[in-house]
């Protein structure tokens, strides 16, 4: 694969590859035992964080869309209320991560980007749960939900940073030697 490439076809294929990685990582995460039922690291967001340094704005949004639709198809939730949570969370985090990375790259590490994304995702999902599930009681689940989100996003951020620093594949992509 040649990337970075100016060929639109190759670039779109690369977006599909990253989206497939997100699917793969979500299945890997499914196998990891969770200390709390609703706690998840969000490994599937790793391609979204890695993609920040590689994709254009349009490609980045496309990656988020493919991630949501792919996960919805694999888990069978694409026509249920769960897809609404997935769309709200993914697009809120995508938008904020893109803004933070684009404008504050010098001051914010990937850990910071990951935390920003997780907080945006959690706030969007809590707002939606207020209307769809819990009503006013959504306020009660907000604190544990946000704390768990903060912890898992730090873990994911460290993971993304480690990957960016140590991955031969990522280095080759940046140099354009793949």
């Amino acid at each position, binding site marked *: *694969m040649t990337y970075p490439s100016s060929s639109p*076809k190759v670039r779109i294929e690369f*977006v*599909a*590859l990253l989206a497939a990685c997100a699917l*793969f990582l979500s299945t890997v995460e499914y196998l990891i035992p969770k200390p709390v039922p609703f706690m998840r690291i969000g490994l599937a967001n790793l391609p979204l964080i890695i993609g920040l340094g590689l994709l254009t704005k349009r490609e980045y949004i496309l990656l988020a*869309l493919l991630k949501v639709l*792919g996960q919805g198809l694999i888990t*069978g939730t694409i026509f249920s209320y769960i897809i609404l949570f997935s769309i709200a969370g993914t697009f809120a985090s995508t938008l904020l991560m893109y803004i933070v990375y684009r404008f504050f790259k010098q001051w914010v590490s990937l850990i910071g980007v990951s935390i920003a994304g997780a907080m945006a995702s959690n706030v969007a999902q809590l707002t939606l749960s207020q209307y769809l599930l819990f009503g006013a009681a959504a306020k009660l689940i907000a604190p544990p939900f946000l704390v768990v989100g903060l912890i898992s996003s730090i873990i994911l951020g460290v993971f993304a940073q480690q*990957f960016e620093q140590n991955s031969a594949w990522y280095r080759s992509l940046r140099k354009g030697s793949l």
Partner: protein
Amino acid sequence: MKTANIRLAMGLLTLPAILLQKSFIGIILQALYVIVLAVSHGRRFRILPNLILLFSVSSAHLLQPHGLQLFSIGNFAITAGALVLGARKAFTLIALLYLSHYMVTARPNFPGKLGKLISLQFYYFERITTIWRTITPKRPFIKAIDNMLLQLSVGGKEPFSTQVKEKASVTSSARNIGKNTLHLIILWTLFVLGNLAIFPVI
């Protein structure tokens, strides 16, 4: 007509019958029916997430007292109306979730460019899972992922999309159409019975 399209159509036509169900017993029966439908088509049913949903949504509704007071915990009143309202909402969500599971059992294809991209995404997903099986050791995880991505890139000198083959679509038989029509009729009958208050009122 493809099986996937038949199931999608059946699911979409059933949505109003579930969303507009007013009877508590009716929605429970509809939920049970779609769960059986999804499970009989290869989907897994896990009791715990459904119980968590049922419990959390019902509890959340207790914060707004409604109807007959059953008992109280301190100043907090447990009311029958709020419990039933919460449980009905939870069963609606469970029914919609398993209906969605059923709708995708035949792997529907999306039309247009987006559909092609999703096919490409699943093509890569299959390649990733195949390559992942050959990767040893799988610890440390970052190195294993890196190896997998490198292998994927080395094998991809040609554009991968040229290798994507459209899966042969399964054409639906008249029997399949009949079966889905029957599911549709049963779910709508449950809706009618529920809304005519034929089921016991809780």
